[in-house]
């Protein structure tokens, strides 16, 4: 009995000793990356956000290829739930081969900008953009209206959400995009080992904090310290929601360039489906960012700062998908070519110059931001849960493509 208690105390002491002694500034920086999941934020431009009927309709539509021009490409064709809602390809393949990597759509609710160039200012507008882009789904208002009017099940689900479909096909298509957005907003990534550590630190539970691997803790210290990754990868989402030039080439294979945010802003301002347009259900009241955003020369070659949550499952990396593995990403930042940084003198990036051991620690931390995929997890454990509980909300299963 006594020997057992002593062993337990020794084990406790050992585990406590395994928690690094973070200073107050480090602690504040670490705590700023939570809690997770964040409180939901309402999209006031989408009148059916949070509505059960809309969520159910969106879940069905996500897997329905009939929204596309040829009936063969659905949202799930690129945003595969089995792959953390992306496709594992360097660049997306819809009706044509695209030029950008498919971002995951988990945790997509409540963001300010959507797409690598931020050409959309709402999740429903981003959904609509994918539905309509010729190289993605290539759908039209007529395509969407035909689905609603031609399939009794979809028509009933539409009626339950929006009322009887009117004669305006464009309005019907926008409504379907809003239903998709309502469902996507319920797709929230589960908590991770980092979240458990962060919360343990907040409540002063050193024993629980010490269960977080030391390598990950050392990597976290680098992340918020010497490497300054949190300058852009900020907050619970590990993204400040804005755009950055990180010295990647923006020339496209076969010629041309990808101007990134520079073109995205032009597309945003000219988009009739932005939050200042007639389809925004709040009359533009929630369009603060859209109303105030301004274009700068430095936007050329900037791309959205991606979340780091789930990154273990989202290779290949970067907007062009040309970095196959996480180690390639770390190498990019460790040896970054400052000559490529063409922004107006913004001195944000410099070669990290980390040792191999430090890179391994940073890698360990970054991997702790991902939950195991279902095939890697304990049977029955949740993967992608809905707000309010794992697996809650609408089922992701829907009609076959």
């Amino acid at each position, binding site marked *: 009995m006594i020997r057992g208690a002593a062993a337990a105390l020794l084990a406790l002491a050992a585990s406590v000793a395994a928690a690094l002694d973070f200073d107050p500034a480090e602690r504040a920086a670490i705590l*700023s990356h939570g809690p997770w999941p964040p409180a939901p934020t309402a999209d006031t431009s989408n009148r059916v956000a949070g509505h059960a009927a809309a969520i159910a309709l969106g879940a069905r539509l996500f897997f329905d290829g009939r929204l596309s021009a040829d009936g063969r490409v659905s949202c799930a064709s690129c945003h595969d739930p089995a792959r953390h809602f992306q496709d594992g390809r360097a660049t997306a393949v819809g009706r044509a081969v695209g030029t950008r990597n498919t971002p995951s759509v988990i945790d997509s609710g409540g963001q300010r900008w959507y797409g690598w160039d931020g050409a959309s200012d709402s999740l429903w507008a981003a959904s609509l953009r994918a539905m309509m882009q010729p190289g993605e789904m290539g759908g039209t208002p007529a395509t969407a209206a035909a689905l609603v009017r031609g399939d009794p099940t979809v028509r009933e689900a539409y009626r339950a959400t929006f009322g009887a479909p009117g004669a305006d096909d464009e309005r019907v298509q926008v409504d379907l995009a809003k239903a998709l957005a309502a469902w996507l907003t319920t797709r929230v990534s589960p908590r991770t080992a980092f979240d458990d550590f962060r919360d343990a630190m907040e409540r002063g539970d050193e024993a629980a904090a010490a269960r977080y691997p030391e390598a990950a803790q050392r990597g976290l210290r680098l992340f918020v310290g010497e490497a300054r990754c*949190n300058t852009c990868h900020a907050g619970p989402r590990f993204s400040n*929601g804005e*755009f950055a030039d990180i010295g990647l080439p923006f020339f496209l294979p076969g010629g041309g360039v990808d101007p990134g945010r520079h073109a995205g802003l032009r597309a945003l301002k000219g988009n009739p489906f932005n939050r200042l347009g007639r389809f925004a259900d709040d009359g533009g009241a929630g369009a603060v*960012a859209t109303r*105030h955003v301004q274009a700068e020369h430095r936007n050329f070659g900037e791309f959205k700062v991606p979340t780091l949550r789930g990154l273990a499952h989202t290779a290949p990396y970067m907007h062009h998908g040309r970095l196959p593995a996480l180690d390639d990403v770390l190498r990019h930042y460790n040896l970054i070519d400052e000559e490529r940084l063409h922004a*107006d003198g913004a001195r*944000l990036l410099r070669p990290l110059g980390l040792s191999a051991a430090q890179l391994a620690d940073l890698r360990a931390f970054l991997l702790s931001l991902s939950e195991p995929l279902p095939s890697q997890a304990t049977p029955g454990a949740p993967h992608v849960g809905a707000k309010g509980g794992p697996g809650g909300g609408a089922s992701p299963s829907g009609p076959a493509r």
Partner: protein
Amino acid sequence: MKVGALALALAGGAAAACPLTPDDGRLIEGDALQVAWTVAGGGAIEVGQPFELEVRACPDTAELRAVDATMPAHRHGMNYRPSIVALAPGRWRVQGLIWHMRGGWELALDLHRAGRTQTLRQAVDLQ
């Protein structure tokens, strides 16, 4: 005109008191001019999150004409151009601010009074 005056009265209340004190917000002293600013709603500025400012000037005959913010160490500013809403003489609400990086920011307020514009600046450390 009457509607506008009513809106001002409802939205802003009284004109700014003079002189301003730390109770009015963070003070910036100019040449025969003071401003005080607070984050609207009483919250703190958070990295990457939109926020609004409430600004008071003393004397209240000054006019707030522009607001900007930069990160001098990074040599860049905001990605947004704020707008200014007058609440009462010498009082404004500034909308459309987003500070997208932690670190040292410099808030700059352009105020016009008696035929002259002054830019009042203040360093703000965002962590």
